[in-house]
């Protein structure tokens, strides 16, 4: 934020930030509304964005009167999101913002963050969910042992996407064919071939169908962690 965090200016500028920690620890003996009011008052009685965020999260107003200790994990996460954004900060820091939320609300949160960014706000979020990162972020930073090792556009990250593939085909392809299809790190057991493919899967699928009858096919999109691991391996190799 351009100021020493301990200086007067640094303290003042904290009004312009919002924060959602990964492990949200709230004051359990307070009610939701007490906490919201405390955070708003601390930031100069600013809660201009509260209603909008609460609506997006389908946060029942009646629950605000309940003590935090009675909240479920998802409710606490929702309250944490409202606390982080109710004052419409310039910058918001979020650690795994959709943890504990149901899939429908997760989609709403992605849209909320996109709208927030479109209106000029900046969202810093950390996540292990590639889908989430893809949906919300423009740029991705990879931090390893406290050091920034990469800062990339999301489109670049998507290009590096990994899929874990598992298939059974008749006749079984040879090693040369598997390599031609772009399958990497593969292994075969009882006729089932397991391996990884990089980038978009179209080419691999076309070649697979061309080479024989696919009896069974299963694939999962790699987690961000897998991509990071591949990325690190690459870095180590280069070094």
């Amino acid at each position, binding site marked *: 934020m351009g100021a020493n965090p301990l200086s007067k200016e640094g303290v003042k500028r*904290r009004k312009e*930030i919002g924060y959602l920690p990964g492990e949200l*620890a709230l004051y359990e003996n307070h009610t939701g509304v*007490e906490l919201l009011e405390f955070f708003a008052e*601390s930031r100069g009685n600013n809660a201009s964005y509260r209603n909008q965020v609460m609506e997006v999260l389908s946060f029942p107003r009646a629950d605000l009167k309940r003590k935090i200790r009675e909240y479920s994990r998802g409710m606490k996460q929702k309250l944490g999101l409202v606390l982080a954004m109710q004052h419409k900060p310039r910058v918001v820091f979020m650690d795994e913002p959709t943890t504990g939320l149901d899939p429908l609300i997760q989609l709403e949160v992605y849209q909320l963050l996109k709208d927030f960014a479109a209106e000029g706000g900046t969202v810093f979020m950390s996540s292990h969910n590639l889908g989430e990162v893809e949906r919300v972020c423009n740029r991705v930073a990879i931090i390893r042992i406290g050091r920034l090792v990469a800062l990339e556009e999301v489109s670049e990250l998507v290009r590096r996407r990994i899929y874990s593939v598992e298939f059974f085909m008749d006749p079984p392809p040879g090693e040369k064919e598997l390599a031609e299809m772009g399958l990497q790190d593969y292994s075969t057991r009882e006729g089932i071939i397991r391996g990884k493919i990089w980038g978009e899967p179209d080419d691999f699928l076309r070649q697979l169908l061309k080479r024989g009858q696919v009896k069974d096919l299963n694939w999962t999109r790699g987690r961000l962690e897998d991509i990071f691991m591949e990325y690190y391996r690459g870095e180590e190799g280069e070094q």
Partner: protein
Amino acid sequence: MRALLRLRMREQKTVLLAYALGLAVFSGIMAWSYEAFSEDTGFLTQMFVQFEDLMQAFVGVGFSLEDLTATYLAMTWRHPLILFLLIAFGVERSSGLARELQTGTGDLLFTLPYPRYSIIFSDFLATTRGLLIINLLLVIGVYLFSLLFGVEDIPALTGFFWVFLLSFFLHLMFSALALLVATLSRTGGQALGWTVGIISILYVGDFLASMQPQLEFIQPFTIFYHYQVSEALAGTLPLWESALFLGLTLILLGGSYFFIQRRDL
């Protein structure tokens, strides 16, 4: 800062209520049990004379047998249970900072536009208010129950006021100690453990020094030695003792300010 202070005070609400009830009951018991001795004040005097060292450890140095009621009622403040309860209140609240840092609540607090020192001093101010209330309740309780149970030769109101001041300042000092330890600790347990450990050593030191003449030289350093409740209740203004407790409180608060500003969070 006002919002922060209100948050801290709200946290204490339930604990304060429990303390109010507990102290009312205890002060009632102390005043009521005096009746048992009042029929035979000779027995009470004999107890103080025969077990002078032990009684000194319980009621503090400087008790006077001429003010038997004051000496007896002083046991309320020097009673290990009451000492423990009053110390626990201040220490537990002041260690809250270390707990907040451990659980992650501190992460949230430190993103709010408050200087670090206001976060810890709001804790201390709220604890001060709590200590003020419970010390006042204890004094009022003992006085009113003494009237109710017809205790003879009840000390003058000024005596009760001096005791209130002395007790309040002592526990304020322990809260400041807890705050200092909390600014240096990583976990709530660590903060609480160290503070309770230090205070226990001081208490045991005072107790042993009262019983063992060869340890008398350490007594002035044990803090509890200066907690001369019976003298104060008998009407002596505890000026030096109050100044000592307040001075130490200010030094400990200064230390807390110094360390929290420099701590890597």
